[in-house]
C-alpha cells in the first residue's frame, strides 16, 4: 500500500511533467528537495536526541511506569494484545500528551520508542501488528489542543482574531480522532475474519 502510494506520486509526477513540459522544474525541485530533506533531518536531530535522553531519564526514575499504570485502564481496551502493566502504555500516553500540547518535536521520539516496544511485543516481525496500526492511527489523527503554527500564520497575515480557529479545529480533530479509532477497529475486525 505504501509502495503503491510512492510509486503513484513519482510516476504520476514524471508522466505529467513529460506531457506538460514541466520536466525542467521537476529536475530542479527534485535536487533542491534532497538538500532540504537533509536540512530537515539535521534540524530534527538535536530535538530527537534531547527528548530520548529526557525520556530515558523519566523511565529510569519510574515515571513512565507510573504513568503506564495510571492510563492502563483506558488504553488497555485500545491495545488488547499489550500485557497488563507493560511500560509501553506509559510511552503511548506520553506521546499522546505531547501531541495534545502541540509538542510535536517531543512526540516523535517518544512515539518511536513506543513503536519499538510494540514491535518487540510482536516478536520483532517486519509486519505491523494490530497494536502498531492502532498506535499509528492515533498519531496520524492525533488531537492537537492549539495549532500554534497555524495561528502564527494567521497573525502574520493580520487576522483580527487568529485564535478563533482553536475551538472549531479542536472539534474537528477530536471527531476525526474518534473516527480513526472506529475505522481502526473496523479494519482489525475485518482482518480477523
Amino acid at each position, binding site marked *: 500500500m505504501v509502495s503503491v502510494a510512492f510509486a503513484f506520486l513519482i510516476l504520476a509526477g514524471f508522466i505529467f511533467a513529460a506531457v506538460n513540459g514541466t520536466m525542467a522544474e521537476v529536475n530542479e525541485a527534485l535536487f533542491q528537495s534532497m538538500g532540504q530533506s537533509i536540512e530537515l533531518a539535521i534540524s530534527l536531530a538535536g530535538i530527537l536526541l534531547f527528548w530520548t535522553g529526557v525520556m530515558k531519564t523519566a523511565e529510569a526514575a519510574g515515571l513512565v511506569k507510573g504513568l503506564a499504570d495510571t492510563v492502563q485502564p483506558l488504553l488497555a481496551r485500545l491495545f488488547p494484545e499489550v500485557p497488563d502493566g507493560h511500560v509501553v502504555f506509559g510511552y503511548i500516553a506520553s506521546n499522546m500528551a505531547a501531541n495534545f500540547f502541540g509538542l510535536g518535536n517531543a512526540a516523535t521520539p517518544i512515539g518511536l520508542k513506543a513503536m519499538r516496544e510494540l514491535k518487540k511485543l510482536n516478536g520483532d516481525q517486519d509486519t505491523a501488528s494490530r497494536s502498531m*496500526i492502532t498506535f499509528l492511527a492515533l498519531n496520524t489523527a492525533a488531537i492537537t489542543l492549539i495549532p500554534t503554527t497555524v495561528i502564527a500564520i494567521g497573525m502574520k497575515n493580520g487576522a483580527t482574531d487568529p485564535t478563533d480557529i482553536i475551538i*472549531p479545529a479542536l472539534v474537528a480533530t477530536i471527531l476525526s480522532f474518534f473516527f480513526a479509532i472506529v475505522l481502526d477497529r473496523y479494519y482489525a475486525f475485518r482482518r480477523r475474519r
Partner: protein
Amino acid sequence: MAVWLVPAIVAAVIGIGLFKKVNIYETLTDGAKEGMQTWISIVPHLVIMMAAVTIFRASGAAGELASWLAPLLSLVGIPADVVPLALMRPISGTATLAMLDQIMQEHGADSYIAKLAAIMQGSTDTTLYVLAVYFGAVGIKKTGDALKIGLLADAAAFLFSVLAATWLL
C-alpha cells in the same frame, strides 16, 4: 503557556530522577545515543519521501488532480480554493503551510476560505510523514491498513472542518 510547558516537564523529570537517585547525566546521554540510532534510521525515509512529494508537486500533477477533484468536493461543501491544500495535507506539512499562507494573502486572513483552510490544517497531521517515520524507524515493511486508516481519517477531518467552520466560527 507553551513556553513554561517544556521547562516544567524537563525540570520535573530531572528533579524526580535526582530524588530517586538516578544517574541523570548517564541516562540523558545514553538516551540521546539511542536517539542518534533512531535518527539514522529515519533519514533515508525522509529523503525518499520528500523526493516523491516534490516530483508530484513540481510537475503540476498535484494542481491538476486538485482541479479534477474540485467539482466533486464542492458537492460536500469543500470550496475549490482549499482543495489543493486538502490534497497535499496528508503528504507534506511544509507545502500546506506555504499554501495556507498563500490563501490568507489572496483572500484575507479573516475570510471564510482562510479560516476554513486554517482549521483544516490545524485539525490534521501529515499522515504519510508519520507513517514513513514511525514504521521506517522500527523497520516495518508490511504496513497493513495503516495508510488507509490515516487517509480516511484525514478526509473525515476535512468534512468535520467544514461543519465546524460553519457552526462554530
